[in-house]
């Protein structure tokens, strides 16, 4: 059972790797933003599989944090891609 689960984790890792290549290869920023999302699902799946395979329940907590921070990172990506000009007046008044 354990080796099947690890095999599945390895398969998902390979899929995540291929997906990352596909995402990061393209020039558009919008495509890059999907990277966190990809890790959010794929990474969580890998960690849950590893937790079950090695019978280490705390790994599930890592998956939980990964899910939370993948969403957080995605928000950061989208924020930085949103219009930078609208922020300029405020920075100018500050400095």
């Amino acid at each position, binding site marked *: 059972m354990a080796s099947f689960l*690890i095999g599945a984790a390895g398969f998902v890792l390979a899929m995540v*790797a291929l997906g990352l290549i596909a995402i990061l290869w393209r020039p558009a920023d919008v495509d890059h933003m999907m*990277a966190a999302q990809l890790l959010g699902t794929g990474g969580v799946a890998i960690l849950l599989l590893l937790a079950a395979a090695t019978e280490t329940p705390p790994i599930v907590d890592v998956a939980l*944090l990964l899910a939370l*921070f993948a969403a957080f990172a995605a928000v950061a990506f989208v924020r930085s891609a949103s219009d930078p000009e609208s922020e300029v007046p405020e920075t100018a008044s500050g*400095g």
Partner: protein
Amino acid sequence: MTILSVFDIGLVVLILGIGASTIAAREAFAAVIGFVVYGLLLSIAWVRLSAVDVALTEAAIGGGMTGMLMLGAVVRLRLAKGSDTRASLPVRFSAGVLCALVTAGLAAAILSPPEAIPTLAPMVMENLAQSGLGNPVAGVLFVYRALDTLLEKVVLILALLGVWSLAPDSVWGGIPGLRVYARPSSTLTFLAQLLPPVGIVVAIYMCWVGAKEPGGAFQGGTVLAAMWLLVMIAGLKRVPSISQPWLRLLLVVGPVIFLAIGLAGMVLANAFLAYPPGYAKPLIVAVEVALTLSIGVALGLLAAGPPERVQQR
């Protein structure tokens, strides 16, 4: 066992590839996104090194918080036109050779392990029961090396003072220049309403479980910081000015309680930062709760940056 090593090799190749891409990427935005992905992947590597505590910290700080910090800077630096001249070819070549030498030296050190591997693990486990903790890493952080942990909190506050002191005189005590989301959108608002309750529960869970299993004040505090930033970015809460008394109180409450308990230990247990027998666990939990709050506020403010505006009076 072999299938596990195939998994490890795949993971290492992926991490190295993403790591190299953050260096080689032409645009800063792509490089930072690569770095976030790298941080999230590295937490899987830490899991494979059976260091779950570190994996939690890396996922939170390496993946989420550092990415948020750097992306904020990328946007501002995009407005400035820096010189795009890369180092010349001979410089790059010699730098490459130098770095390869460093890597080779490290690799040689790793491949030739010492005959008697020094380890403190048996000593840690021997005395862990006295502290009432179940997580050896928490034991090291709060019992054996409590001074390091205390000083690290001080370092966080010093770093924050350093960041604040970069503000021009006119806006000292003002509002940090955290970039809020430019266009208020109902989607982001919804996420900022949905995620923080979950995050706060996770932070409390991390803080609580840290005594027994992987987790603790660092991880919990980072989650709190991230949730706070999310709420501020979405515009649901205003960014507070750094002269707010409650803010400063929260910032120091953790180190102060830690220090107070440490000083009390001088009287009650005959050593600085020693816990009186039988009371170790409740005291450590109290310190962890206070530290979680302080770390959350400190990390959030570090990510928010120096003050840039004066409060409207």
